[in-house]
């Protein structure tokens, strides 16, 4: 296997994690990863060195943007009844954050996940999204505020219902 392919392969678990958080649905997430890998491998000869990791995140982020655009006119699918009262604290927290992520606008969700989950630098995220660092930072700030409010709102609502 070429060094290029090896470095692509090494990224698969992280790409799957990012895609899962980005798209929520496990099958859609793996579709995104598959398309990302196919595109990357197809362009092997076009790749002139540099950071394979950033490049793969860029492809996946763009593919997801295109996918969302084509879905834009369809209703969003939100599970109605995933409130498992017996869920442990960690599970419930995970569910809350997944739900909060789903209500973020696309660019903010990508920034939040790339920074907080995938550990990319602001500079790398700016390159992935093709925007200045300042834009990345304001997207991140808004995303964090939104997720925080959304999670806290969720808890308040639940408490009120009980």
């Amino acid at each position, binding site marked *: *296997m070429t060094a290029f392919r090896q470095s*692509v392969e090494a990224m698969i678990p992280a790409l*799957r*994690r990012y895609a899962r*958080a980005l798209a929520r649905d496990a099958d859609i997430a793996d579709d995104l990863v598959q398309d990302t*890998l196919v595109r990357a491998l197809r362009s092997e000869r076009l790749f002139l060195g540099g950071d394979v990791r950033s490049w793969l995140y860029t492809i996946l982020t763009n593919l997801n943007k295109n996918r969302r655009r*084509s879905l834009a006119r369809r209703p969003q699918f939100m599970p109605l009844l995933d409130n498992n009262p017996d869920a442990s604290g960690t599970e419930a*927290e995970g569910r809350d954050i997944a739900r909060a992520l789903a209500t973020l606008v696309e660019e903010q969700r990508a920034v939040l996940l790339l920074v907080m989950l995938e550990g990319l630098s602001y500079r790398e995220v700016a390159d992935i999204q093709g925007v200045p660092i300042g834009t990345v930072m304001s997207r991140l*700030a808004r995303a964090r505020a939104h997720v925080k409010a959304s999670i806290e709102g969720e808890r308040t609502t639940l408490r009120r219902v009980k």
Partner: protein
Amino acid sequence: MTDPRIPVTEDELHAYVDNELPAERRGDVEAWLAAHPEEAARVESWRSMAEVLHARYDTVLDEAVPKRLEIERLVRQPRRWLYGAIAATLVAFVAGGGVGWMARGAAAAPSVFQNFTLDALDAHRLYVVEVRHPVEVPGSERTHLQQWLTKRCGWDVRAPELAAAGLKLVGGRLLPGPSGPASFLMYESASGERFTVYTARAEAETTQMRYAAQGTESALFWADRGVGYVVSGGNDRGRLTQIAQAVYDQMEKNGG
């Protein structure tokens, strides 16, 4: 050492949590946070947000990678040749005897078609090997199939009659195309060779017919009145030409 009296900004708080803050400023921010408990709580909430995210999604890292994502498999699969084949060997198609359909329109940029034809050939390769469920609606329900696809696609989808070329309609299915739905029809000869006709909305209004081939698969593709057509089959170019021409002639008759 920067000046600790410089007020800490919102951006700096984020940079602090994300380890993007210059080392010499960290101490200032920490001192400032110690004096501003509400802000400190907010910063802390971002930290726990990251922990929750990791707790929720890091399990994916431990999952076995599904077979369909294995590099060896993806490399072996034929998606790659198409791109090269189409980009490199795009030949202005010379139709043996098909004068009427040669003369149409100026050539559109091949790039418009690259992804399009790629999608069509992927669908072709995926479904021609399918024995039990190659189609969603069988050819025996031709009228229903045409009505359904027309309704879903938004242009007049007709399954051409290819009996003269020795082909019978197996049936069809609806697929996601490059910019909306795509229709996919499959034909089969008595000896089991399969051809597919893929149509989707094309950016180009009208183009010449083009040809792409390598290995055991080839395709002829063109656009007509804003709809793109891809006829895919084996690597017998003469045979494919015969079928594509029959498809073209019938579309022309129907639409014209």
